[in-house]
């Protein structure tokens, strides 16, 4: 969001001082995240309405997801949040090599998450659990409506994954810049702002995990 090109004189002409500029970026980023909340909100609403309408279908279809793969992936993503937080930490201390290291680790963990996600998608594909003409839900209680669960599943995880992919491109950009020593204690706003974005994406997943993977694992609903 802010200029990256001249770290020493990163102050843009229309700001009075660096603090005003950084403040503006921070507020802007949080406002952007609020927009993102509402953006995901539409999907959460669809999920809520349909889970309310077809509880049995949602329970059965949720059991089709891989609990342990999901939990492992959650761990990976939280790990990437930690490395991101550390990258911001070292950026504020101006430790160039450590910034690059932790950004790279974040990239690696983010990539791992997407890899696992791809495996899960592939699995769904093999089992015809993609909503559409060939949809099947082997042994589901209410197969007709299980398609709505998977519509929500792909909608929500798909939008989440899209955010991850965008994030990964930005990390690569940040790593390149960081290697050139663009970020120091006085000015590292891009790293900090990206950190907020990355943590937000993490939070979305923190909610997606129980909502999509953890419905009625115990089979209590089946009665």
């Amino acid at each position: 969001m802010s200029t990256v090109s001249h770290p020493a004189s990163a102050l843009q002409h229309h700001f009075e001082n660096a603090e005003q500029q950084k403040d503006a970026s921070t507020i802007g980023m949080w406002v952007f995240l609020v927009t993102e909340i509402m953006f995901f909100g539409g999907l959460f609403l669809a999920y809520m309405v349909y889970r309310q309408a077809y509880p049995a279908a949602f329970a059965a279809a949720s059991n089709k997801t891989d609990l342990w793969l999901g939990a492992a992936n959650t761990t990976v993503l939280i790990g990437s949040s930690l490395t991101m937080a550390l990258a911001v930490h070292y950026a504020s201390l101006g430790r160039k090599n450590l910034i690059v290291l932790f950004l790279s680790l974040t990239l690696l963990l983010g990539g791992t998450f997407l890899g696992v996600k791809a495996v899960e998608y592939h699995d769904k594909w093999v089992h015809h659990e993609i909503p559409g003409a060939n949809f099947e839900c082997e042994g589901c209680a209410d197969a007709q409506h299980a398609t709505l669960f998977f519509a929500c599943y792909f909608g929500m995880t798909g939008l989440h994954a899209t955010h991850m992919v965008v994030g990964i491109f930005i990390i690569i950009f940040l790593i390149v810049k960081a290697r050139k020593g663009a970020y120091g204690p006085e000015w590292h706003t891009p790293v900090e702002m990206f950190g907020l974005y990355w943590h937000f994406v993490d939070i979305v997943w923190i909610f997606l995990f129980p909502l999509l993977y953890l419905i009625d694992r115990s089979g209590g609903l089946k009665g």
Partner: protein
Amino acid sequence: MITAPSPVLTKTNYLNEDHSLKGWMLTKDHKRIGILYLIGVTFFFMLGGMYAALIRLELLTPAGDLLESNTYNKVFTMHGVLMVFLFLIPSIPAVLGNFLIPLMIGAKDVAFPRLNLLSYYIYVVGGLFIFTSLILGGVDTGWTFYTPFSTSYSNGYVLTTGLGIFIAGFSSILTGLNFIVTIHRMRAPGLTWFRLPLFVWAHYATSMIQILGTPVVAVTLFLVVLERGLHIGFFDPAYGGDPVLFQHMFWFYSHPAVYIMILPSMGVVSEIISTFSSKKPFGYTFIAFSSLAIAVFGFLVWGHHLYVASQSVYAGMVFSILTYIVAIPSAIKIFNWIATMYKGSVRITTPMLYAFGFMGLFTVGGLTGLFLASLGMDVHLTDTYFVVAHFHYVMVGGGIMGFLGGIHFWWPKMFGRMYPEGWSKLSAIMIFCGFNLTFFPQFLLGYMGMPRRYHVYPAEFQVFNTLSSAGAGLLGVGYFIPFIYLLWSLKYGRVAGDNPWGGSGLEWKTSSPPIHSNFEVTPVVTQEAYTYTTEEVSHHVNG
């Protein structure tokens, strides 16, 4: 009037500092971006207006003799889509807001100039998507895109139009984000919140709606596009999907969207009435807070579009009572504007005529909104021409009167020249009369039961339809005249001077047109807004 030395244009200003195409197309200057938006919204307004003309021509007679049903459906859909998403939503915020907010708060630019330019290009890309679907053959879903018609039955270009609106939505979001941050962080020293002009308050409230509402309609239309492309079942009853869910999601944004159109207009009217009465707006704080109240309560009432759509009766009652509550802040504004004129020094100028027009039309629009908010009444009126008339009174009567009023008010600031007063007053009166002639008969048609979006209609509705079409002709001419004389004034208009109206805002303290960085020195604010001095009151071009 004191005979001031005849004003001259600023030698170097934002308009003439750089004449290259690149200097315009890649500009980060909020003023130039505002002008770019002005060109964009004018283009789409004229396009949408052409569609409106086709609609009114077709409805001149009961038979469907001018257009085929399919074509007619596409025509009213494109009219709605263009006018709502590409004209009304960006009109005041993106043109006047962009141009004026930094000037009014004494800043050199908005907080994120590059983002500002980006949001302009996002708007252009969204507009191109919609324009392309229009060229390919249009879309016939109505601007509301109700499912399952839009997802499974429409034979138009729902995908490209939906994506276009989705994209244009981000332009609106980013503009709102920019304004919020700008208003929070870029104010000149001494410019506290309660010294801000009401225009800025109105835009702050508008930005809140843009930020909080637009993403929901974006994701909704995205789901419609997915559903139509892949048939995943989100809104398809065949899979158990709920078409009413779509309506909830759509109106969660699209009802507050009306406030995106009307709040900035209210801001404009507050400025105009204060300036031309040379008086601080009566109830400044009430007007400021009523803007915020409208933004907040405006999000609680969307279900009044769903009274007969099989929403629960209980929910209908809740939405109805909340709708009545949100009407109050609007009423407060109207009364405060009138009280502002009391014992003022009133000048009837063109912008003031538009402000009066706004008050008249918005009052009718708002009051008929009370008819529709009333549950038992709405059962008869909803989906009839009464609704069409109501929202045109609000969105056109409110939105466009505010937009034209604002353009006429700040035109001398934007371009440094005056337009011919006689022509401008004539066209303002024509627009007001033409508008009423066009849309008032539609209230009566609606109560008689003529449903909206009807291509062919029973003969007993013809009299009012003919009146309405006649009014539309007058309205069309009324809109066309400003287009001519404003263009003319760019070169031949009288040089206006820095403060032709005797305004008190910071935007009048700098040169006309302003220089690139707005102010030679950052202004320091030491008094409340709307403090009129003898110098300002006397030093003006008399209307």
